[in-house]
C-alpha cells in the first residue's frame, strides 16, 4: 500500500467500524423517551382496580364513575429533542387463561388515538421532562367481557400497551409496557 493511500484507508476503516457498531449521527439526535409509571383510577394507583359487581349492575358504564376507569401513563423525555405520541395499541390478556381476549381484538389488540407532545429539555434544571398521557384503556367490550366472565376475578387482566409516535427529527418512537387490571368481587 502506498503512503498516499494509507489515510484514505484509515478513514474508510473508521467509518466502517462506526457504521458496524451502530453509529449515531450527532447532527440527527433522537428523543430519549422512557415509560415511568401509571396513574390509575381516582386514587392514582399503579394498577387499575375494577369492582366486578359494579360492572354487572352497570354502574361503571356511567359518567359519574368515569374517574374509576382513568389511566394516565407518565412518560419521561431525557433528550432536548421533543416527540409526539399519536396513538397506542392495547392487547388485552386474561391472566387466568393466559390468552388474548378475542372479543377485545385478540392478539392484534385495539389501537386508539390521542395526542401528546413530549417536551424536550430546554434547560439544565431537570434531568428529564415529565409528560402524562391520559387514556381510557378500559373499553365497553372489556367491561362486557368482565361482566360475562366471572373467572376474571382469578388474576385479572393484563394490558400490553405500545405507545407510537414520532420525534421532532422524524424518528419513529415505540414504547412498550404492561398495565395490570385487578378485578375483584
Amino acid at each position, binding site marked *: 500500500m502506498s503512503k498516499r493511500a494509507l489515510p484514505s484507508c484509515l478513514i474508510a476503516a473508521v467509518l466502517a467500524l462506526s457504521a458496524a457498531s451502530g453509529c449515531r449521527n450527532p447532527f440527527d439526535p433522537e428523543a430519549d423517551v422512557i415509560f415511568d409509571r401509571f396513574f390509575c383510577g381516582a386514587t392514582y394507583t399503579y394498577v387499575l382496580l375494577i369492582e366486578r359487581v359494579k360492572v354487572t349492575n352497570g354502574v361503571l358504564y356511567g359518567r359519574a364513575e368515569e374517574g374509576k376507569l382513568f389511566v394516565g401513563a407518565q412518560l419521561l423525555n431525557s433528550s432536548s429533542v421533543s416527540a409526539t405520541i399519536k396513538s397506542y395499541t392495547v392487547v388485552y390478556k386474561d391472566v387466568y387463561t393466559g390468552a388474548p381476549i378475542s372479543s377485545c381484538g385478540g392478539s392484534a389488540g385495539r389501537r386508539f388515538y390521542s395526542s401528546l407532545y413530549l417536551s424536550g429539555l430546554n434547560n439544565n434544571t431537570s434531568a428529564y421532562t415529565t409528560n402524562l398521557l391520559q387514556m*381510557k384503556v378500559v373499553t365497553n367490550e372489556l367491561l362486557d367481557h368482565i361482566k360475562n366472565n366471572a373467572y376474571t376475578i382469578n388474576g385479572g387482566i393484563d394490558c400490553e400497551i405500545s405507545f407510537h409516535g414520532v420525534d421532532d427529527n422524524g424518528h419513529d418512537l415505540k414504547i412498550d409496557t404492561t398495565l395490570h387490571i385487578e378485578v375483584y368481587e
Partner: protein
Amino acid sequence: MKRALSLIGLAGLFVVLNGCRNPFLPASDVFISYLYGPNEAGEVSVYSAESGGTMFSISNYRSFAAFVVRNKVGINITSLTMVYTDMAGNQVTEYSKSGGKSFKMYTRLYPVQSNSEFSAGEGRVTTVDFYPVDRRVITELATVSSNTINCLLVFRGEDDTGHDIRLSASITIKGYGF
C-alpha cells in the same frame, strides 16, 4: 471566471435541492401539543344513558386542541374537517358520503412575542374548542363493533406570510353502555 460561475451555480443547485427557505418570508412553526376530551382524558367518552332524548348535552363532548406557535408568524385557522372511521380504518357515520364533517371557523393562533413564552414550554399556546360528537356519531357508536370510533381532525388555515397551514391529529371516541 468560468470556474467562479460554475461554483455559484453548484451552490445554488445545492440550496434548491436542500429545500431552501426564503429567510425574508418565514412560514409559521406550529404544532398540536395536546388533544383532550372532557373529564380528564385525551379521548372522548360517550355514555348511552346520557346520549338520548333530553339527556343529550353537547357540552359533555366539548374537546380541545392545544396549538403551540414557536415563532413570530401567527396563523388564522379557517376550517376544520372531522373524518370518522371504525377500528379497521373504514369511514363510518352518515358523513362518510361527503368525506367527513366540515365547517368553517375562525381562530387566531397568536405568535410568540417575547422570550418569556419559551421559559415555560415550547412557545405560545392557544386552545381551540371542537365538538366531535353529535347525533349521527352516537347512532354509529351504538352499532359499530367495539363501540369505538376514531376521529381524524384536519385543521386548515393560513399563516400571516401567506403559507397554507394543514395540521392533523386523531382522537378516539369510546362508547359505554351501548
